[in-house]
């Protein structure tokens, strides 16, 4: 056998709803009008919660915050496909996913105000705390997926990461294990083209991120990340496969970070504003709204009413978050380990009556 081709691979991209609000009828997922409207409402809510967070930060009422502007479809489309059983492993920019699960907005704000209690998930909601150490949490999803299979629980572990996250060794170790153990796991990568100031093109020279799945012998797909229907469909398919024992999927959502990396960042230092223009045309909310209007499900006044309603919801959430009494120093000790040792107990005493 001389030079012989021994393996072939292909990467597919899925798109359903284009920037003008036109859909590919064959691919349209079977969602009823209520669901379609709910999707749009979640997109709206995501954007408003994010906008409000930025305002609070500017007023010094919230700490450093990473905006999800422009990535709403990737978050809501995938989050909407989840079932209550599934476990979610967020990165730090997935407010849209938290909202799909019904996570209390006030808690989410509270976390970014510098309070760990904001990440205490409500009972029955299987979501891990926000993960700051990029790329390290895919392994936890793998572990939960393995545990669930061991317990014969039909859940899927869904983990979110960014394009930058694909460069970490843990990304590799986790997805390789997901393949070996054929785990019920879905990794959703929001390729927003930037890792702070490092562009996607400098993160890897692979033409797509989806093809990284080939290294692990698992399924990889790319979707239009600003197309909420395509993201929903791709996630839904991946979840089905995982539930049916057909193994993990790595989904690359092509989207764009329309804001600074965080409120501590100034993207003008490193990126050309002109780059944003084409992506404004691809706005995920706009295209969904156009689609709904064409379907006669939506109009200007509905839009206005919805925004009002959501903003009222936000006023309450902010009020709740700010009404919360400050955490006690006990918090810091009691959550370090299940039982404090004698030195920790002495330290707690000192700390209690030792306001700085």
């Amino acid at each position, binding site marked *: 056998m001389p030079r012989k081709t021994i393996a072939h691979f292909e990467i597919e991209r899925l798109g359903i709803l284009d920037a003008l609000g036109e859909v590919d009828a064959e691919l349209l997922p079977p969602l009823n009008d209520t669901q379609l409207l709910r999707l749009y409402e979640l997109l709206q809510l995501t954007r408003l919660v994010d906008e409000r967070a930025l305002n609070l930060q500017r007023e010094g009422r919230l700490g450093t915050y990473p905006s999800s502007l422009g990535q709403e479809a990737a978050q809501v489309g995938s989050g909407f496909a989840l079932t209550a059983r599934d476990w979610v492993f967020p990165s730090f920019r997935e407010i849209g996913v938290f909202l799909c699960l019904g996570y209390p907005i006030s808690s989410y704000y509270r976390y970014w105000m510098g309070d760990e209690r904001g990440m205490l998930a409500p009972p029955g909601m299987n979501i*891990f705390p926000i993960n700051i*150490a990029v790329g*390290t949490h895919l*392994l936890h999803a793998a572990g939960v997926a*393995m545990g*669930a299979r061991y317990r014969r629980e039909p859940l899927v572990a869904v983990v979110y990461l960014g394009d930058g996250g694909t460069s970490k060794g843990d990304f590799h170790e986790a997805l390789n294990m997901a393949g070996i153990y054929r785990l019920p796991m879905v990794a959703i990568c929001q390729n927003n083209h930037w890792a702070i100031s490092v562009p996607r093109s400098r993160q890897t020279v692979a033409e797509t991120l989806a093809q990284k799945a080939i290294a692990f012998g698992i399924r990889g797909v790319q979707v239009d990340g600003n197309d909420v229907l395509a993201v929903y469909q791709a996630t839904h398919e991946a979840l089905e496969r995982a539930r049916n024992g057909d193994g993990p999927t790595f989904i690359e959502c092509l989207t764009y970070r329309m804001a600074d990396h965080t409120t501590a960042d100034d993207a003008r230092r490193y990126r050309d504003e002109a780059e944003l223009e084409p992506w404004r045309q691809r706005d995920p909310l706009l295209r969904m709204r156009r689609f709904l209007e064409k379907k006669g499900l939506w109009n200007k006044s509905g839009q206005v009413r919805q925004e009002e309603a959501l903003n009222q919801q936000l006023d309450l959430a902010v009020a709740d978050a700010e009404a919360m009494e400050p955490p006690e120093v006990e918090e810091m000790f009691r959550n370090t380990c299940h039982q404090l040792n004698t*030195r*920790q107990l002495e330290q707690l005493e000192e700390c209690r009556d030792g306001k700085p």
Partner: protein
Amino acid sequence: MANLNLVQAINQGLRQALADDDRVLVFGEDVAADGGVFRATEGLHAEFGEERVFDTPLAESGIVGLAVGLAAYGLRPVAEIQFLGFCYAAIDQIFTHAARIRARSRSRYSCPLVIRTPYGGGVKAPELHEESSEALFCHMPGLKVVVPSTPINAKGLLLAAIQDPDPVIYLEPTRLYRLLKEEVPEEPYITPLGKARIARTGDQLTILAWGSMTERVCKVAASYPAEVVDLQTLSPFDRETVLASVRKTGRVLIVHEAAKTGGFGAELAATIAEEAIMALKAPIMRVTGYDVVLPLPLLEDFNLPSEKRIKTAIEELLRY
């Protein structure tokens, strides 16, 4: 009651944990068919099957990260890292996640995992196979660090570690694996974490040691009025027992394999200097590995605390 060496006691402990609690899973590199490179998991794969005892790919960070997820899910993972020297690649998962998931989730999730790993020198093994970096793990709140020194406490501490609701680093002194045998109770039992063991009583000098140094220290101490405190758990260490012994004897010698600077002996000395200094009749001495990159077999005996160095230090202290 059977006469077991340390690795057999660990094997028995693992078998009983697997049998008693279906949440326990054992995994790592070569732990299944091979039974572990030191045979600590021998027979477990055959007895409990692929779902409970399985091999992983060669990925230490992955092994620990997987364990973190399994533990948060509610299981009791017992992961083996083939040698402590390969734990460095897993420190991010251990420090960033295993130790913190309880805090980050405000106790919604916890991390009851055990990481077992052979550690320490004296076995003429290749590079990175004889590390003793226990001190690193003792500086991360949220972690427990346990070091057995006999077949009996090896089993009891292992079962305690597996039952503990928080992450435990369980360091197995490779040099002791087959060095000594003793009668180990057949039934499962617990050796409580956080408690030291008085390996030998004495009233003129307190020697603090753990793991493989306990054995060496006891040999030498036999001919002196020295009390040997075998810490058993380094984090949290048994401050009360240590201080009580020091207050009784007024002299302290600390012995460990790891490099001197920044070793766990420093914390013991600092604690004594902070809380029992008035009881001291002499300087707190440390006999430890040197501040060098660990040598290969031909030089390792010059680095490991020798009986001679321990003897010399004891005699110097007793002269005060």
